[in-house]
Structures are given as structure tokens and as C-alpha cells.
């Protein structure tokens, strides 16, 4: 196992800790260029200021060829019809060479498809061991089936997902009916088409990007996997249908720990939705009752990205949501009676996030101390933001909130190096261990700019337990499985999940920080099928667990 580490001693105390507080315990290195990641986002903007131009792109970590190395998928926009050169590939696939470099294999993989790409959800819907890709787009979104030979086939029409257009954003794969087959949830933003664009203006003369209020809402979609390669639209039947929604982010969670996956949908200027699984194929929105529909002052915020995780190691998952500037991020902690409480202020997240417009956000244990940290990328919608009162900047620095393990978070973006705190027009964000050193690295995309790959170098001695699950009775990727790892310090819990963040997807393998410990006392795996497995005294390292099998 390769492990990049650095000595904390002399270097750390020298000058990097000027911001106060202890050393973050890790450094980030910008390896975009070294890795050969030559991506540049094309929003297609030509002056007409079409709404979708401001939204993308998303990105994902996946192992499409099954070689155990995380590959990278980044979505792209394209020129609008009749402008520029017209068209352009809507996504790029970069294969991990295993030596720190990546190769663009889009063409070879058969993904050089013209489309205006937005987000992505990666999941093995046919349980063949190779992850398939659902790409959301402006217009018709696509499902690409992995052939297992390094190539993909567009099965949109064949699977019954064709014949519908929209401004689709985030998506996720989950098995809501627990039949062992991944179903698909797709967020739609608003009803928009270039032909019926609305004129909005800040100064009364020049067109600017419209706020979502200018457009009709659009329902999200839920597709049930029939198991024969086709999907059934159960949007109406399941109670998901809602024409008022303007959805941008979606995350799965298991409220009450009943094993049935629930959904949280972040809506822009509309109340957020918390769909509770009724265990009979339907969902009920309990967002208002649970206190997550509106901000504490009763206003529907402009929710963008969302992630759900047990950030306080309490055993129940909390919710982080990125919002518009002046709205602050939300950090919901699950209370005893099922209602959520926004603890962003108490946790020290409100004030730093007040002047930023956030998009992608992920809980990830960056320094492997056993406490989930919170990463969020920021950037404004409109480059003319300078002309608007209360200028908070178009390009904005990302947040890297370090969890102190006592309910407090501290933004250490400026302390971790690599130019991570450089202001950018951030959108997508995903994490994954690209170099197999046991910590999670970061991938972030920018609107109209490059994507950035950051290698994480944790301080020497910090160990992790990484777990990749393979379902047998459950869906093949064990999406929805919950793993609890107990050390002397407490119990961390994580769910195997797609979706989350914004338009993006992180790796499915779970990372548990053990700090300086060599082993975990107990590891409990709760499979989506309902089975539970328990292991004692698991050493730090990387494991693959097949449902019902042995660890290691």
C-alpha cells in the first residue's frame, strides 16, 4: 500500500497555523495538471443568458472498468444549437492509470455523445458488477449501460426512460422498494426551453440570468426498476409528483433506521421536500413537520446541494444544505422526536457561509480523526453580480469545515494549502480515494472553467478503515447499506449512497477514520436486504465484503 505522508513536526508549526486552532492534520495538493485532467467546462454562453448555463457541471468518481482504481467522469455543457460550433460532447471520462495520471477515454468508451450535460448518478442497475451511468441533461437525459468491456451503450429508449425532456439536475440510484434492484430518482429544476426563455434584467437594459421565480416548477421523477432492463414511471403512483418543485439536490437517508430509504430534496426558492418511505411503494412529504422545509424564520431558501451523514457520531444522520448567499448553509441535526433542528449557527457554519453561494457539499473525514468534516464549493450565478448591491463576488472560496468532534466546525480552507481557498465559480464536488492511500481526495468543477483534482495528504500516523460492500441478496453495490464502526472513542456510522452533493457522485466505498488507532473494536454491517453482519477487532486497512461473506 502506497501512503503519502508528511512529517507534522517542524513544518506545521512554522507558519501555516497562523489562523489559530490546531493543525488540520492534512494538506491538499493540486494535482490537476500532473494528473492530465485537461477538462474545461463549456456552458455554451453566447450572451442570451440561458438559465442552464449557470448550473453545471457535475462530476463523479467511479470504477467503470473494475480495476479497483477510481476513474473520473465530468459532465459538460455544449454550444447551443445555432451558436458556436454547435453541439459538443456532454461528458468526459478519464481512466485512472494507477500512476497518478488519467487518460481521456471518452471516445473509446463510447460516451462522446452530443448533449447538454448537467449531473450524474452512477449505479449498477442491472447488477452485472459494472456501474452504469445516468446522465441528467437539458432536454433528454440518458442512461448508459456498462458493457463490462470498457464501453457504454445508450439504453435510454430501450429502458423506457426516453421520450421525456426537462431541465434535469441531480439524480440518485436507490432501492426504495427493497427488491434488490436499483431504482432511479431524478430532480428537475424548472420548465425551461430556449424557445420560451424569459427576459430578466438587473439594470433594466441588459439581460441577466433569471431567478427561478420566473419559471414554472417541474416535478421530480421516480422510476422503478422492473428488473428486465426497463423502468416504470412511478412518479404519480409513489406520491413524488409535485409540479411546484424546483429541485437541484437530492440525498438519501434512513429516518428512524427502519431500513427503508427516504429522500431529501433541496428545492430552489421552494420548500424542501423530505419524502418518507411508506414501505408500500409510496412516499409522504413530511418536510414541514420535520422542520426542514423552510428556514427557521419560515422562508423557503434557495437550496442547491445537500448531503446527509451522521456528522456528530450520534447514530442518526443530519443534513447539510448549501443555499444562496445571505441565506447561510443549513446544518440540520436530527432531534429526538423526529424533527430536525438547524444547528448551523451553533456549529459555527452560519457566519462563514453567509456571504457565499454554495453548491456541491459533502461530508468527508478529511483528516481521518473519526469525525466527518464538511466540504462545500461556492460561486455565484451571475458574473454581473458586481453590479448588484451587496457584492459578494462571482468567484468565491470553498469551505472546508473541520469537525472538532464537539459540535463545532472551523473553516480551514486557507490552512490546507494547494491553493484550495482560491475563489472559484464552484459547482460540482465529489470525493474518492484515487491513489489508494486510505484517505479521500477531492474533485471539484467550476462553471465555465476547469475541474480541479486535489490529492489529500494526511498527517503521518492517521489510519483509516475502508470498506467496499458487494450485495448478493441486496443490490450489487449495497446502496442503502449502513455500516457502524466502533472504537474506544465512539461509533461512526455511514451509508452507502449515490446522489448527494450537487449534480455529482462520490465513491461508494466507505472511509472510517481511526486516527492513530490500529483497529476498530467492532464493525456492524446492515445490508439493504435486512441482513446484519458483525465483525470484531478489524484492523485498519482496505476491505471488500461480500454479503454473507467474511471480511478481508
Amino acid at each position, binding site marked *: 500500500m502506497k501512503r503519502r505522508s508528511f512529517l507534522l513536526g517542524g513544518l506545521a508549526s512554522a507558519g501555516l497555523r497562523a489562523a489559530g486552532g490546531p493543525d488540520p492534520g492534512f494538506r491538499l495538493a493540486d494535482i490537476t495538471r500532473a494528473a492530465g485532467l485537461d477538462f474545461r467546462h463549456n456552458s455554451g454562453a453566447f450572451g442570451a443568458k440561458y438559465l442552464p448555463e449557470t448550473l453545471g457541471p457535475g462530476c463523479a468518481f467511479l470504477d467503470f472498468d473494475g480495476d479497483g482504481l477510481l476513474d473520473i467522469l465530468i459532465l459538460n455543457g455544449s454550444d447551443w444549437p445555432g451558436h458556436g460550433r454547435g453541439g459538443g460532447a456532454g461528458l468526459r471520462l478519464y481512466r485512472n492509470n494507477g500512476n497518478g495520471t488519467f487518460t481521456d477515454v471518452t471516445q473509446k468508451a463510447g460516451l462522446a455523445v452530443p448533449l447538454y450535460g448537467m449531473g450524474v448518478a452512477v449505479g449498477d442497475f442491472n447488477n452485472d458488477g459494472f456501474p452504469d451511468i445516468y446522465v441528467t441533461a437539458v432536454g433528454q437525459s440518458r442512461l448508459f449501460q456498462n458493457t463490462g468491456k470498457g464501453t457504454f451503450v445508450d439504453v435510454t429508449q430501450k429502458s423506457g426512460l426516453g421520450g421525456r*425532456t426537462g431541465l434535469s439536475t441531480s439524480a440518485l440510484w436507490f432501492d426504495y422498494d427493497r427488491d434488490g434492484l436499483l431504482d432511479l430518482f431524478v430532480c428537475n429544476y424548472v420548465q425551461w*426551453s430556449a424557445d420560451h426563455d424569459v427576459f430578466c434584467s438587473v439594470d433594466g437594459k441588459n439581460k441577466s440570468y433569471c431567478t427561478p421565480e420566473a419559471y414554472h416548477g417541474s416535478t421530480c421523477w421516480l422510476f422503478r426498476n422492473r428488473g428486465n432492463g426497463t423502468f416504470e414511471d412511478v412518479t*404519480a403512483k409513489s*406520491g413524488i409528483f409535485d*409540479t*411546484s418543485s424546483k429541485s437541484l439536490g437530492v440525498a438519501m437517508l434512513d429516518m428512524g433506521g427502519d431500513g427503508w430509504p427516504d429522500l431529501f430534496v433541496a428545492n430552489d426558492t421552494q420548500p424542501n421536500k423530505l419524502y418518507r418511505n411508506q414501505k408500500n411503494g409510496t412516499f409522504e*412529504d413530511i418536510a414541514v413537520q420535520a422542520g426542514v422545509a423552510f428556514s427557521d424564520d419560515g422562508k423557503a431558501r434557495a437550496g442547491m446541494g445537500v448531503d446527509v451523514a451522521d456528522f456528530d457520531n450520534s447514530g442518526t444522520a443530519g443534513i447539510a444544505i448549501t443555499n444562496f448567499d445571505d441565506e447561510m448553509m443549513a446544518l440540520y441535526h436530527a432531534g429526538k422526536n423526529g424533527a430536525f433542528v438547524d444547528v448551523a449557527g451553533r456549529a459555527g457554519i452560519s457566519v462563514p457561509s453567509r456571504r457565499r453561494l454554495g453548491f456541491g457539499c459533502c461530508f468527508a473525514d478529511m483528516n481521518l480523526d473519526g469525525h466527518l468534516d464538511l466540504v462545500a464549493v461556492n460561486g455565484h450565478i451571475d458574473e454581473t453580480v458586481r453590479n448588484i448591491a451587496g457584492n459578494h463576488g462571482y468567484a468565491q472560496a470553498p469551505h472546508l469545515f473541520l469537525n472538532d468532534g464537539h459540535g463545532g466546525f472551523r473553516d480551514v480552507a486557507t490552512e490546507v494549502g494547494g491553493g484550495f481557498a482560491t475563489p472559484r465559480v464552484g459547482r460540482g464536488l465529489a470525493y474518492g480515494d484515487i491513489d489508494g492511500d486510505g484517505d479521500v481526495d477531492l474533485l471539484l468543477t467550476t462553471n465555465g472553467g476547469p475541474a480541479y483534482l486535489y490529492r489529500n495528504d494526511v498527517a503521518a500516523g492517521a489510519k483509516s478503515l475502508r470498506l467496499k460492500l458487494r450485495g448478493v441478496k441486496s443490490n450489487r453495490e449495497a446502496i442503502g447499506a449502513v455500516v457502524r464502526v466502533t472504537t474506544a472513542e465512539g461509533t461512526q456510522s455511514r451509508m452507502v449512497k449515490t446522489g448527494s452533493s450537487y449534480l455529482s457522485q462520490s465513491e461508494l466505498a466507505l472511509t472510517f477514520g481511526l486516527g492513530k488507532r490500529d483497529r476498530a473494536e467492532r464493525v456492524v454491517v446492515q445490508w439493504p436486504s435486512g441482513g446484519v453482519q458483525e465483525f470484531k477487532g478489524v484492523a485498519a486497512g482496505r476491505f471488500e465484503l461480500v454479503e454473507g461473506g467474511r471480511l478481508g
Partner: protein
Amino acid sequence: MSKLNRPSPTIRLLAGLAVTLLAVGVYSTYTFVQLGALRQLQTETIDRNRRDSLLLLRIQNGLNAVALAMRDMLDTEALAEGPQYPLAAWKPQFRRLRTDLEDALRQERRVSVRATASGQDQYLVDSFRQFWDALDRMFERSEVSEGEARTAIRLSLQARHAAISTAVARLLIQNNESEQEAQARTSQIYRGVQLNVFVFLAAMVIVIVLTSLYLVQYNRRLFHKVEEFSERRSELAQQLIGMQESAFASISRELHDDFGQILTAIGVMLQRADRKAGDLLEVREVVQATLDKVRALSRALHPVVLDEIGLEGAFDDYLPEFEKRTGIEIYYEKCGVARELDREVTIHLYRIMQEALNNVAKHSGSKSARVMLDYATEAVTLEIEDQGRGLGKITGGLGMVSMRERAGMVHGKIEFLEPESGGARVRVTIPLKDNYAG
């Protein structure tokens, strides 16, 4: 001391204080009552009204969402390509809206300050119930025929929706009106309080001014009286001293002129008969002693030397005698050019000198004293100084009073000092006639 011929102001002042306190009490009570009314108006009416308006806005928002949902249900030509969802798909959306609206309505009725008898609430509740009933019927019908259901939306639901929306708008306007009313009442209360403050302050100012004027006037009279008394007393004392001096002077003259002459004559006669009788020698000695005593008494009562040889002569005469009598050493110095002084001035200066030296002998315990007489251009100054115990308690004695009165009688100034070196110093400064006469 005799009582002032006006009564003491204490009673009047106490009465004034009582009236003032009463006024403050009445005013405070009134103000508190007014403020209480204001607070009640604000919490009871204005705050509740505002919250009610917010809830009505929330209801109006919900109605908007209902309208949008109905629009979407009728909108069969969607912008995007996709499946046509059955009308039944909207059920959860409406269920959510209904929950939200009913909650808002419940809260609104709780907060509202409308009279329950107004019937508007009942109308609103009935209208909503009819709307939800019609909605349920529409969903039922949609299972049979979507077209008919859409017609029901257009004909029944939208009309009912418009009616509810109008009713809510009417309530909002009503709230606004009652808020304006409350506003008017508030400003009326404020005006009343303002006037009260004004009246109260004016009354307070008047009371303060009157009291002050009364006290000033009273004090002025008091000072005037005191001054009068003091003058009268001083006059009396001076008259007394004057009378005493003139009495002493006439007795002294009698003693000197008459008894002196007689005794001198007897002495001469006895001298001539010297040789004849030895007994007569004894008589002559008795006569001589009597003569000396008479002379001394005469000088003591009125220093004739003053009239004969002036102040300095009198000093030269008296000081050695004093030294001999008391054993206190006297250092006598004179400054300036001697001038002829008023008779009055000389007698009083002389007497002050005598009194001061008597004090030295009686109280100071000093072995020596210094007497200084200084003629300056505009005043004559006399200083008597000793090295004794200082003034101590004797400052209020009769001797001091007579010294002060004597100085006063000739427009002079007397000072009783205690120099840092110890002892006591009496200083009399008497302006010369040219200076004070004018």
C-alpha cells in the same frame, strides 16, 4: 434673641411639598394608566393584527400555490416533452397544500381580533370546506373522465378559489383598516400623554419658581433684620464705651485737678510745719502716698498724658510702668513719621494697647511682648505680639469685644492672628481721617 415678627416658612414649605408630591402622584398614575392602555392596544390589537395579516398572507400564498397547481392540471400542453400524468397524480400535492392551509386558517382564527359574530370566519371556513369537497369530487370524477374533471376545475373549483381569495383579501383590507383605527387611537393617546407632560412640566416650573421667589424674599428680609440688629448692638456698645470714657475722663480730671491740688497743698503745708512736730512727718508721708494713688488712679481712668503729650508720650509713659508691674519685657518700636491723631483715635488705640497687653499678662504666659506702632500715609497700625500660648479660647471674651468695638468706632479694622512662629498677634489698622471722611 427676639422672634422674627413673621412666622417661620417651614409650614408653608411643607405644605408646598405635599401639594407637589400629590401632583407628581396624580400625574404618574394618570401616565401609567395611559401607557397601560397603549400597551394593551398594541398587544391586543396592533400586534395581533399584524400577525393575523401575516397569516392571511400565508393563506393567500397557499391559495396561489393551489391556483398554480390547478393551472398545471389544466395545462395539457406542457413545455417539455414527456408523459401526461393523470390528474390523480396531483392528489399528494393538494393534500400537502390542504394541510398547510388548514393549519394557517386555524392559527389565523386564534390570532384574529375580529368579532366572532361577524360571520366572516364562518364564511371562510365554509368556503374552504366546499372547495375541498369539490376537489375530492373532481378527483373522483377524474377516475372516470379526465375531461369532465377538467371542466369541474374550470367551472367549480376555480370559481370557489376566486371567492375564497377575495374573502381573504377582504379580511386583509379589514385588518388594515382596523390597524389604521388603532393607529389613530395610539396617536391620540400619545397626544394626551404629550399634553400631560407639558402641563406637568409647566406646573412644576411654576411651583419651583414661586418657591424660590418666596425663599429669596424671606432670606432677604432675614438678612436685613440681622444686619439691623447687629448695627443696633454695635451702636449700643459704642455708646457704652463712649459714655464710660467720658465718665472716666471727668472723674480723672476731678481727681487730678481737685484732689491732686488739695493733697499737694496739704503736702506743702505739712513741709513747712516740718520742724515743729515729728508726728506731722508721718501725716506728710500718708498724704504723699494718697497723692500718688490719686494720680495713678487718675491716669488709669483717663490717661491725661494722652491729652498732654499725645499717643507716643502715653506709650512711653505706660510701657515701662507695665514692664515694672508685670515683669514682662516689652520691645517697643515705632515706624514712620509720627503725626497728630484724632483724640478719638488716640484714646482707642491706647485702650486697645492696654487691653492687649493685659491679655498678654493674664493669658499668654509669655515672658516678653512686642509693641509696634506704624504710621503709614493712609493708616496707622498698631501691633501687639507675644510668644505665648496663642489665642486659644479667649477669642470670644469681653476684652476682645471691646477691642473690636473700639476699632469699629474709629472705622478701623482689628485682626487677631496666630503667627506660624507661635504666640498671638493683635493688629489694628485705622485709616487716617482724610481717607475715610470723604
